[in-house]
């Protein structure tokens, strides 16, 4: 009767629905055998590339994915991947950071260091702003001084902590006087703290500088064209760019904001978007086996680590920190969180950050570091000896990436294994960002992860952060030996053997005391669709006009 029919119809509908859901299940390649990868130090399982094929010619336009919308294009707030990725193509700094992380002249054609406390910058002739004006010393003075203005609240203010004055000493010359020798300051002139904007534009834009309706007016190979809130930023080629070697090969670049990793990968595979940094690790396999386009791994200065934010709690004891690290399955984290593509790190600084040393020298330094091999029993013992017995800690995490989740869970597991009572607190991506700048946001948090990249090929950029009292020394860790070594390294000029030794000593102390727990060093990841090529798969994209190197592929 009708019951019979209904049953069949119901079953049919269910079948349709299940099929649809199964189609979801079958989209994409199936996961391969898990027994191929030993899952340990996966250094050999993936290949690092230094370059991509040279472009054969110019291209009209290309699109690029950003995993988040920048909040502002104003350089004082350019402290993170999304804004820097865009800004590096539009604005330039006094010096330039190259693909191999070396530094060369930029908007300053020459740098002079007559004495340890004085830096004299000769401003390059004939550089024009996108709106038409010519670059002079006035623009440099105004741009650098912006970081000193408390109203602006520059995220880079600490770079200027030893600056006494910034003065125009000639039409095309600016002199910076320091209160004490500081080997870092000049290096920072190659990245955001040294960005130069038109003084007139800064004056005119005021509080609107760098926001979606106002934009910026700089000197780079691309100029700011438009910012459609929530959707994209478009840059157009600037024909009067001063450096003919770096003239843009594309007429236009559009950055689309795609926070969902699925969306990014799908868009890459469909060819809707031509490329992107930050390839989601879940898609490595899928992207490297299916065309069209190529996945590259390259040079990076990032070390992913767990920041100890509270040394008043159980994590205040170095032995407890050691035990926690020993109980953390870092190989497992790399496998689950980065698809095996990363190297376990025992230092907070990647090997690539030691600029100016030979590979052997770097290896020697790293060979001395303790390795904290994964050993839960030993960790438990160490923890018990240190008096761990059910104390509470809170680990903050955010759904910013798969790795973040994996790290939080793995560290929580480690904590529980050694006898701590661990709670994971999930915060939004923006609250997570606030952890890095607001003590209020960090209240009640014992630990949170960071993918800390250095903007300079100089270990002091990392270790300087951990000196007593520094802004980003989130756990207020303090070690007088460490301070002494790092002070010396800051004062010594770059390249001096004594400086290298001091840094190696500082690194050893940090590795012993574990103010932060180093986890692993991942490579930079790059996806290039079939239409484009030319950019180096390197972290340099944060400050170098990388988009200008992209042109048409074969």
């Amino acid at each position, binding site marked *: 009767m009708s019951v019979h029919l*209904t049953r069949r119809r119901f079953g049919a509908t269910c079948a349709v629905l299940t099929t649809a859901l199964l189609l979801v299940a079958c989209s994409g390649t199936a996961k391969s055998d898990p027994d191929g990868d030993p899952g340990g130090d996966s250094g050999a399982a993936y290949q690092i590339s230094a370059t991509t094929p040279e472009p054969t010619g110019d291209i009209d336009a290309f699109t690029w994915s950003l995993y988040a919308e920048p909040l502002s294009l104003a350089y004082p707030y350019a402290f993170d991947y999304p804004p820097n990725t865009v800004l590096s193509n539009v604005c330039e700094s006094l010096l330039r950071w190259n693909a191999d992380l070396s530094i060369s002249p930029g908007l300053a054609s020459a740098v002079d260091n007559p004495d340890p406390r004085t830096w004299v910058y000769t401003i390059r002739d004939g550089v024009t702003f996108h709106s038409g004006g010519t670059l002079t010393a006035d623009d440099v003075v105004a741009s650098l001084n912006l970081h000193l203005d408390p109203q602006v609240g520059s995220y880079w203010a600490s770079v200027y902590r030893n600056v006494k004055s910034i003065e125009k000493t000639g039409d095309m010359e600016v002199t910076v006087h320091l209160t004490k020798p500081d080997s870092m300051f000049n290096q920072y002139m190659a990245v955001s703290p040294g960005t130069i904007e038109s003084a007139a534009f800064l004056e005119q834009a005021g509080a609107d500088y760098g926001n979606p309706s106002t934009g910026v007016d700089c000197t780079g190979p691309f100029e700011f064209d438009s910012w459609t809130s929530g959707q994209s930023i478009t840059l157009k080629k600037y024909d009067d760019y001063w450096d003919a070697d770096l003239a843009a090969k594309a007429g236009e670049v559009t950055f689309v904001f795609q926070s969902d990793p*699925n969306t990014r990968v799908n868009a890459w595979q469909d060819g809707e978007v031509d490329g992107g940094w930050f390839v989601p690790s879940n898609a490595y396999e899928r992207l490297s086996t299916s065309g069209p386009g190529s996945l590259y791994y390259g040079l990076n200065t990032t070390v992913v680590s767990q920041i100890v934010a509270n040394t008043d709690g159980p994590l205040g004891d170095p032995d407890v920190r050691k035990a926690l690290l020993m109980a953390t399955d870092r190989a497992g984290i790399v496998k689950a969180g980065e698809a095996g593509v990363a190297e376990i790190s025992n230092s907070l600084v990647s090997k690539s950050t030691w600029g100016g040393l030979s590979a052997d020298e770097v290896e020697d330094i790293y060979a001395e570091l303790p390795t904290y091999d994964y050993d839960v029993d030993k960790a438990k013992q160490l923890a018990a000896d240190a008096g761990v017995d059910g104390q509470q800690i809170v680990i903050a995490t955010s759904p910013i990436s798969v790795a973040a989740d994996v790290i939080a*869970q793995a560290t929580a597991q480690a904590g529980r294994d050694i006898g701590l009572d661990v709670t994971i607190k999930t915060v939004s991506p923006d609250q997570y960002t606030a952890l890095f700048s607001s003590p209020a946001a960090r209240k009640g948090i014992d630990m949170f992860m960071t993918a800390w990249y250095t903007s300079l090929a100089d270990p002091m950029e990392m270790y300087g952060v951990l000196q007593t009292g520094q802004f980003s020394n989130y756990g207020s860790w303090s070690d007088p030996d460490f301070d002494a070594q790092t002070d010396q390294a800051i004062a010594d000029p770059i390249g001096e053997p004594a400086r290298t030794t001091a840094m190696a000593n500082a690194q050893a102390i940090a590795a012993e005391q574990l103010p932060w727990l180093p986890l692993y060093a991942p490579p930079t990841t790059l996806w290039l669709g079939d239409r484009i090529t030319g950019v180096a798969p390197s972290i340099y994209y944060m400050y170098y006009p990388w988009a200008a190197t992209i042109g048409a592929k074969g």
Partner: protein
Amino acid sequence: MSVLIGVQPRAGRMSRLRSFGGNWLFALSCAVLVGFVLLAVLAPLLAPYPPDATDLLNSLAPPSPEHWLGTNQVGQDTLSRLIYGSRTSLVGPLMIVVLSTLLGIALGLVAGWRGGWVDAALSRVFDIMFAFPGLLLAILAVALFGKGLAAPVVAMSVAYTPFVARLVRSLVMQAKARPYIAAYAVQGFGAAHVAGRRLLPNIAPTVLAQSTLNFGYAVIDLAALSFLGLGVQPPTPDWGAMINEGRGAILAGTPLSAVAPALAIIIVVVAFNVVGEEIADRLAGRDL
């Protein structure tokens, strides 16, 4: 979906055509619902693993004898998380429905029974409440009070109340005109007694039908909130949150940790809708 389709208090002939021929579907739906409730209550006994036990080397594993539904990104067993997830995924909606029903009955009863300016004032209040769609109010509540289950549940209870209240009010007003109610009044029974002991039991089934339907909507709305990252927070297992977490799994080509909770939601909501409609259908022919 935050807009509710209500049960129409039709006092008249009902549509003779039943949506589903036969009682087997109704029985099945009831069984399904009971099953999920048991899962929620007996979770610690039924789940093979603790829901947050990680196993990083088994990340995104396909179904196997050890893990019937595979694992998620951090190696947690999907089946266990599904079972434990039934707790938050069902308790939240339950509280919303209970709160909104109680409040709605109270307000609707007063408005319908008293009439006059009380009714006019309350109707105005309902208008205001109607102006705030459930999901929107929940989002505003999260903005004010932070993420989690508490703020959205309270907000959505408030948002669902006017639907119940309006239904109760209509039913009460219709009933007031009935001779048997007038008879009680004549016999000297107080208004509260009549309303509570005589009226309420008669309108209760209709309200129950509406509430059952509301449950399904509440499940979807709360799941949507968790999917947006504003509701239940990880690592607490919750079906909506699991679907959000599972998007990474879909990317990797092993979407089961997202598909399983999605199916769970759909099955539960269908079951509630079937039960609710069946009750509504059977009632529609009854006189109040």
